[in-house]
């Protein structure tokens, strides 16, 4: 048993629903009790879909268990097929159904249905949502194409279209900004003269999946979901996989280069295509230098975010990690390159503990980290699922490609500026224009009150109280006054460094001299 307060991922069958809901003409028959139908609201409320996800729940009850739940499965299958007339029927178990072992997949396959049935194995007690999505997509691709795999040694069929083409694989319902990423990457490819053959699962039909082998290569846009399908297509249809995920300017340039190389076309990346490089170099971005950031999310977005933070915004990545054990390797590698050890955990409390220890100035995470950051008073931007309704914005806001880099620049720098506003308020709150109740505008709705009577040593940076360091250390009055004179945007760092220096040197009362000794010590 594993104690869980909040989970980063749902169960695997929610991943299966994500795939069904991404596509057209696919229906999922889920053997599940009534309560599992809560999953509908993930789609209709969080993603604001205008239709129920294409799922039929068998909704068996305790009284059915004694009799024949298999009979119920068959009835539900026939009702679902008749009502929704899908091109393909996916059939799977939820966690409870897995225990009663009705094998709905084989029941459906042998029940003489007129539509193709693709059973999906969910492994609810060891796997999770992203795995379930990846497995379902892979099962669909294989289920539909396995009869068309060319015999070993046979020639690849000639290209039907002169223009080089790729498939975009992985974008899905409830993914992070997938809808906009697809548009951005499609445009990027079109600009290179490359056509998108099929984009799947998002907006694809089973018929579209049958056309997958016509493309020259597969773009594995979200490895969590498309990884297994890309591997299978590579093995069976000799389609190469383009693996660079184009999030950030550097990665987008590499993506363009990889596409060009794979397809044997000439293309030089457009260096003017994103505003991020210039914005990042412009002088008013100087204050971003060395901002301490913590990055956490799924593997794809975490690795990309850490790279952007380090290479494109000149932040200091102080910690990074992922909730996905399956994809942990890439995160570990990326962390190692930054001299860090990755945090691999789906324990929300552990993530919270690490964040409060590291005291970052910016958190890039999921909705969970947004709440942690809010509690600690640290600015935050959401970069990955799980996400909330506000992370499915009405406006065009991709993460991928050059426009994605622009969006990322804005959405990460904005909370830092908001954070500055908060510090300014704290700094000037003794001035006559401000009263003790003044709040930073971006936090007003949260009811966070400014700590009105706190001395400078306590307001200089957030979350300080948790460290325990301040408990044994005191600042004498002059040192505290001196600290107040330090500009607010470096005051937190000065305080932290001074206290660490004092602790390391056995100083209990911090004097003005201690402050400057620490400054000298750390200015190496």
């Amino acid at each position, binding site marked *: 048993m594993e*104690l869980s307060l909040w*989970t980063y991922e749902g*169960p695997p069958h929610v991943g299966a629903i994500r795939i069904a809901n991404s596509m057209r003409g696919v229906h999922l028959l889920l053997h599940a*009790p009534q309560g599992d139908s809560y999953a509908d609201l993930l789609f209709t409320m969080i993603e604001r879909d*205008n239709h129920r996800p294409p799922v039929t729940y*068998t*909704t068996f009850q305790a009284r059915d268990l004694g009799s024949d739940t298999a009979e119920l499965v068959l009835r539900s299958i026939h009702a679902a097929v008749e009502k929704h007339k899908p091109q393909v029927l996916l059939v799977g178990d939820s966690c409870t159904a897995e225990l009663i072992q009705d094998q709905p997949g084989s029941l459906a396959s042998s029940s003489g249905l007129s539509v193709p049935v693709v059973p999906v194995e969910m492994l609810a*007690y060891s796997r999770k949502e992203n795995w379930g999505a990846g497995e379902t997509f892979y099962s669909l691709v294989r289920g539909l194409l396995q009869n068309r795999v060319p015999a070993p040694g046979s020639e690849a069929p000639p290209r039907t279209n002169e223009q080089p083409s790729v498939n975009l694989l992985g974008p899905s319902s409830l993914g992070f900004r997938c809808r906009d990423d697809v548009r951005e990457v499609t445009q990027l490819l079109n600009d290179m003269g490359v056509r998108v053959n099929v984009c799947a699962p998002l907006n694809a039909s089973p018929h579209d999946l049958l056309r997958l082998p016509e493309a020259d290569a597969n773009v594995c846009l979200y490895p969590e979901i498309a990884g297994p399908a890309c591997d299978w297509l590579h093995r069976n249809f000799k389609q190469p996989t383009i693996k660079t995920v184009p999030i950030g300017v550097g990665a987008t340039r590499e993506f363009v280069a990889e596409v060009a190389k794979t397809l044997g076309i000439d293309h030089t990346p457009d260096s003017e295509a994103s505003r991020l490089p210039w914005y990042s170099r412009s002088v008013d971005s100087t204050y971003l230098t060395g901002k301490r950031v913590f990055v956490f999310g799924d593997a794809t977005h975490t690795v990309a975010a850490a790279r952007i933070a380090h290479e494109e915004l000149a932040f200091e990545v102080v910690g990074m990690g992922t909730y996905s054990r399956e994809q942990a390797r890439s995160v570990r590698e990326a962390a190692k390159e930054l001299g860090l050890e990755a945090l691999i955990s789906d324990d929300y409390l552990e993530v919270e503990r690490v964040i409060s220890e590291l005291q970052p100035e910016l958190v890039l995470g999921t909705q969970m980290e947004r709440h942690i950051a809010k509690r600690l008073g640290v600015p935050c931007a959401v970069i990955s699922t799980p996400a909330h309704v506000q992370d499915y914005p009405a406006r065009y806001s991709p993460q991928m490609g050059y426009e994605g880099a622009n969006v990322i620049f804005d959405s990460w720098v904005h909370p830092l500026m908001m954070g500055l506003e908060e510090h300014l308020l704290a700094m000037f709150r003794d001035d006559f224009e401000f009263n003790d109740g003044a709040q930073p505008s971006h936090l007003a709705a949260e009811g966070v009150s400014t700590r009105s009577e706190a001395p400078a040593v306590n307001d200089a940076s957030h979350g300080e109280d948790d460290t325990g360091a301040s408990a044994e250390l005191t600042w004498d009055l002059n040192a505290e006054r001196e600290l107040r004179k330090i500009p607010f945007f470096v005051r937190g760092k000065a305080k932290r460094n001074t206290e660490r220096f004092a602790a390391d040197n056995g100083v209990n009362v911090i004097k003005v001299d201690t402050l400057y000794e620490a400054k000298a010590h750390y200015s190496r």
Partner: protein
Amino acid sequence: MTEAVLATDNRAASTAPAITVERGQRAVFCGLTSIVWLHRKIQDAFFLVVGSRTCAHLLQSAAGVMIFAEPRFATAILQDRDLAGMADCHEELDRVVEELLSRRPEIKTLFLVGSCPSEVIKLDLNNAASRLQSRHSGRVRMVAYSGSGIETTFTQGEDKCLTELVESARAPVNGSQKESPALIIAGTLSDIVEDQFQRLFDELGIGPIAFLPARSGDAMPRAGSNTRVLLAQPYLTETAQALRGQGAKVLNAPFPLGAEGSLLWLKAAADEFGVSDERFEEVTAAPLARARQAVGYQREKLRGKRIAFLPDSQLELSLARFLARECDMNVESITTPFHDPQIMASELALFGEHPDMIEGGDLESRLDHVRALRPDLTVCGMGIANPLEAEGLRSKWSIELIFSPIQGFDQAGDLAGLFSRPLARAAQLEV
């Protein structure tokens, strides 16, 4: 609403109209969901679901954005090892409970909540609760109940929880024989509503009264043979039975929704406790007038509008009665997940026969029915609201009716307002 309401109540409830039972696919939350409001009510309690990742995800999705503090509910997620018998589930549970209690020393009551998986593998949580109880006695009270989706629908989770609280209140705590109250109000109400009712009962001279659930785990009332019970929520079939089992008398009344419902609900208690009609009038006249006035404003917006109910909270019939009788709405169709004719007797007496009333309901056919009716407003579960809106059908999520204070005189106008707002919004939007 007419002045004749009190007379109406006296009509015999024997003419209960037939309700059609329809089986099929359901799309209603399971009983675990009630943890979302129960944990806010019982402030020193922790709810530990023994279940799967699905259960954890359901709770989190239903609790939505309320993740600001460390929650007082969690899931002990069963793993492969537990199922394969490689780990002893009871030992694992003990370990998880230890871990939990050491982190949350302030917890006074720990609910072990059963789920579909724990029930299918026949993990005996009652047994676990008594084992853990003897280990932690004096510190934490252990209570086990089922919130599983194979046993309970949405609000029935509260019924199971309260039933268990009533049953376990049978044994006197710490040897002290607690006085049983004269009146128990059963069913979670928001604090503000409780306080209003407490004032009214005080003025009526009825007491001592107790609320079930109480705001803290060790304050749960114990019924005695002198105890009367008023149900504040309609989904408490088993709780009512358990209270009866302790000798209490459960009063029959409509539910305190709207001016009329609140009045008749209080009147049932007043009559039982021999409060004079004059005194009753004196106490209720002012709040009743306020309630009627507030509902009156909304009635102008709701009159003649057609409404349908999809199955969700079990409040359907009470809401339909309020909207029909006090807001002049036309109730076209009512589907309720579960119907208890005894508990609903007074409601049915007021509302009367309805040709389109269904218990259970098959999701697809109910949706098609609503599409055919095209009512002005459909009360439904959260997952279905936006799809209906997208089809041009205005909706009201019933879960909001569970979370918002809607009972009593001073909430009657707000309650009506929850239904008029979507209509006003639709009328104003030009895009």
